[in-house]
């Protein structure tokens, strides 16, 4: 089932972010949302997952118990190891046999190339590794909708490419509805199947395009050397 946003309105004080906003997000597709910084892209994600309540309007087709979120910063518990951070979100929807959970954690750690750092604490990892843990956490949680708020923005080019490849690899095997917001067109083009361009506040959809460029798509120019 697709996600339908109907007549959504949201303001912060005098600032109108959304006014009678409508949008349909297609099921099991990656929808990329482009727009200038501060235009309300993150607000849309927060409205979708219930972190922010709309002033008016409805979001249909979203099960609030079944959402994953890859934030701009990894938001890992600094006092828990990588493995414990992953376990933290799995307890809610735990499969009855604990061994199976561990198998899934091990599998996911392997998929994101972190199998050797399961017992490390977040502060012992690099920024890219932390964001990988955050991606692993999002996919381990059995969600129908995955929200991504510029998770690659703080990473260098090579790491960004690698992480996006890893993300697509995992997504291909475990397809979910993804909403990915960024102000970087290259990032959006690399990952998304549908690209929406948002205007500044109050948000209007300026453009909607199907992304037909073949993969692999590169975010940064390839170094000839």
């Amino acid at each position: 089932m697709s996600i339908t946003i109907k007549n959504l309105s949201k303001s912060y004080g005098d600032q109108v972010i959304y006014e009678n906003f409508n949008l349909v997000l297609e099921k099991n597709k990656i929808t990329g949302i482009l727009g200038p910084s501060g235009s309300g892209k993150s607000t849309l994600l927060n409205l979708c997952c219930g972190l922010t309540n709309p002033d008016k309007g409805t979001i249909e087709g979203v099960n609030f118990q079944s959402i994953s979120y890859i934030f701009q910063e990894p938001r890992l518990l600094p006092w828990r190891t990588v493995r414990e951070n992953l376990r933290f979100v799995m307890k809610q929807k735990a499969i009855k046999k604990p061994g199976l959970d561990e198998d899934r954690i091990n599998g996911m750690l392997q998929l994101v190339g972190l199998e050797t750092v399961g017992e490390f604490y977040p502060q012992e990892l690099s920024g890219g590794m932390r964001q990988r843990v955050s991606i692993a956490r999002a996919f381990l949680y059995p969600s129908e909708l995955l929200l991504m708020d510029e998770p690659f923005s703080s990473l260098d080019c090579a790491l960004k490419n690698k992480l996006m490849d890893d993300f697509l690899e995992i997504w291909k095997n475990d397809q979910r509805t993804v909403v990915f917001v960024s102000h970087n067109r290259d990032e959006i083009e690399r990952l998304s199947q549908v690209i929406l361009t948002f205007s500044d506040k109050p948000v209007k959809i300026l453009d909607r395009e199907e992304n037909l460029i073949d993969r692999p798509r590169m975010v940064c120019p390839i170094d000839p050397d």
Partner: protein
Amino acid sequence: MKISTALENNQNKWPKKIITKVGITLFWVLLWALAARWVNSPLVLPSPLKTLEGVFTLAGDFEFFVSIAATLLRVFGGVFISVLLGLVLGLAGGLNELFYEIMNPFVTTIKSLPVVSVIILINLWIASGLVPLVVTFLICFPVTWTNVVQGVRSTDNRLLEMAKVYNVTMTQKIRDIYIPSVKPFAVSAIMNAIGLGWKVTVTAEVLANALPSMGMNLYYSKIYLETDLLFSWTLIIVVCSFIIEKATLHFIKRTKRGGTDQCQLP
């Protein structure tokens, strides 16, 4: 060429650190000895040697150890109850605004009351031996409670948002987010409560005539004009307080897990 590691550097610094500390202590003891010599009256200011002699004299009596044990029990009892209740009620106060509003007038009143008033009031209601324990609890509880509430309120909101999205239960949020966030505040509260607990317990022992106690021994030394013993008891209290503070700090450091860098120990 030898590459010096951080560990080696730390090991090399240890003897220097100890020598410095011993040197500083000796400097103050020397100053005390000089002052005692200048005053030249053990009744007003006994010398360090006379004070130490007093400690040995006291240690020869079984009653001495009973007094120390009784005072320690009161300090620990009062501090333990205040820390335990401070943690539980502070957590509740930090999480629930209404509960905070209910507790706040009580805590503010206790905080603003002079210790002596609390001691005299409590002495009216309960047995002398228990007064120091109850007073210590009443004085230390606001410290713990306030710190824990502050700790809960300074919890990283981004982690709470993450937990909300992933549908984490309140119990798990308390265990995995709030308690680790509160830990540095709780450690600081425990250290403050121990320091405060000693002073309050001994004061309450004197004013409530609690027996057996270190406080009453201090008082008897004063009324019998045994200034050297008064100094000896004071020295014992200072040493006990120092040992307990260091032992608590050591215990907290040992229980601190590898990744909990959030916990800043003093």
